[in-house]
């Protein structure tokens, strides 16, 4: 059974239809990358999955649980929060909490949200995650004492700490200096190899090709092409995909 089913998802901002009926499925443990030129609706799609935006139409189903359908637009805050926890989110701008250390950033939400977990256990898990991100010597640093690449890795650990079903990345390396993208892509690749279920919006075509099980190419609010990297990246059918790839691969 698919871990995520998105059906005919639509979203308008005023008169501007940004998502024009997006449908796709993904399997547990898969890495799905979303490519597409700027303004094609990639961020909006992730934000709809996280319910940071309320879609106008369509359904989102996670693990067979109907998370969203258009008739329940007025979700109660409580339900909304529970539903959001199916997804983790890593933002382009990291959005770490500046007044907390790396470790505190990671354990803050579990402490507040996971009432059933012991705080010693949460702390231990936080350390394990930061270790995994290669940040064992940075746990007590504040975000402003960390490089962009380190901050983004903390943000990844923070998202993982809540054990989301699906981890979403919105251009996780776009705000980084070129020499720092590698360290972030490396940990994402490791997560992919460990079969973390992930949706990655990225402009790193070579990276997407390497780690993805599936690629979606978005164009003007629709899925223009979808398939394994060997198809979408190496042998695209769609004219827009070809054009986009030729811009990026020179």
């Amino acid at each position, binding site marked *: 059974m698919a871990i995520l089913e998105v059906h005919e998802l639509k979203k308008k901002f005023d008169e501007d239809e940004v998502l024009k009926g997006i449908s796709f499925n993904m399997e547990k443990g898969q890495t799905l990358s979303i490519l597409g030129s700027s303004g094609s609706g990639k961020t909006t799609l992730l934000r709809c999955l996280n319910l940071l935006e309320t879609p106008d139409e369509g359904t989102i189903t996670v693990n067979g649980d109907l998370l969203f359908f258009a008739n329940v637009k007025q979700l109660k805050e409580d339900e909304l*929060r529970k539903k*959001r926890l199916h997804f983790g989110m890593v933002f382009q701008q990291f959005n770490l*909490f500046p007044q907390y250390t790396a470790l505190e950033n990671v354990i803050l939400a579990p402490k507040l949200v996971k009432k059933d977990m012991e705080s010693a256990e949460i702390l231990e898990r936080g350390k394990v995650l930061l270790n995994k991100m290669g940040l064992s010597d940075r746990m007590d640093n504040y975000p402003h004492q960390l490089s962009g690449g380190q901050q983004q890795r903390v943000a990844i650990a923070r998202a993982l700490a*809540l054990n989301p079903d699906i981890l979403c990345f919105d251009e996780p390396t776009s705000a980084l200096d070129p020499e720092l993208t590698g360290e972030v892509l490396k940990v994402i690749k490791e997560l992919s190899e460990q079969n973390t279920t992930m949706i990655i919006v990225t402009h790193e075509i070579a990276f997407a090709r390497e780690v993805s099980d599936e690629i979606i190419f978005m164009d003007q609010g629709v899925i223009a092409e979808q398939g394994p990297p060997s198809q979408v990246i190496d042998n695209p059918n769609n004219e827009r995909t070809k054009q986009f790839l030729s811009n990026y691969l020179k």
Partner: protein
Amino acid sequence: MFTSVTISLLEGFLGTLKLFSLTLLFSLPLGLIISFGSMSKNAVVRVPIRFIIWVVRGTPLMLQLLIFFYGPGIFFGVNLWGAGDSGRFTAALVAFVFNYACYFSEIFRGGIQSIPKGQYEAAAVLGLTKSQTFFKIVLLQVVKRIVPPISNEVITLVKDTSLARVIAFYEIIWEGERFIKSAGIIWPLFYTGVFYLIFSGLLTLLFGYIEKRLDYFK
């Protein structure tokens, strides 16, 4: 002579201190409430509040003191403030609280609105409630940003309390000036300045300390 002047001035300074501290006590929370009103999505709430803030910040405190003191009697024929010194104090306090709450509200609004949207979104995707987001994420960042402007206002307030003498509120300058008439000496008036300097100096140190304590994050 010096001792007796010091004692009288201390008494006057007590009046200053009382007005100062009670103004802060009431205007800071009121300012926070007004700032929420001024950010309300509902125009019926927001527009009048912004208008009042504009009027209060755009006119002299001296004028507001006079209007608050004489207004109720002249317009409505009621003696709202009660008789004598305590009545004057109440009127002065109300005017000061109202005035400073409006100034503080603008500082709070600036502080709250300067928190990037990303902080709220990060908190939301981590499943935090609205109140957890405010108290655990937003509040301290706001505090850090507003300490310097609040510090300015508070030090201005120390000196502004002297304006209350316009409605014959008894404070330190009033006391110092008395010696010109009674003893023909002016140095007590200069001496009052020392009180202000020491007090605002202490406040500067206090706020400097708070700023330092919040220096650990950016």
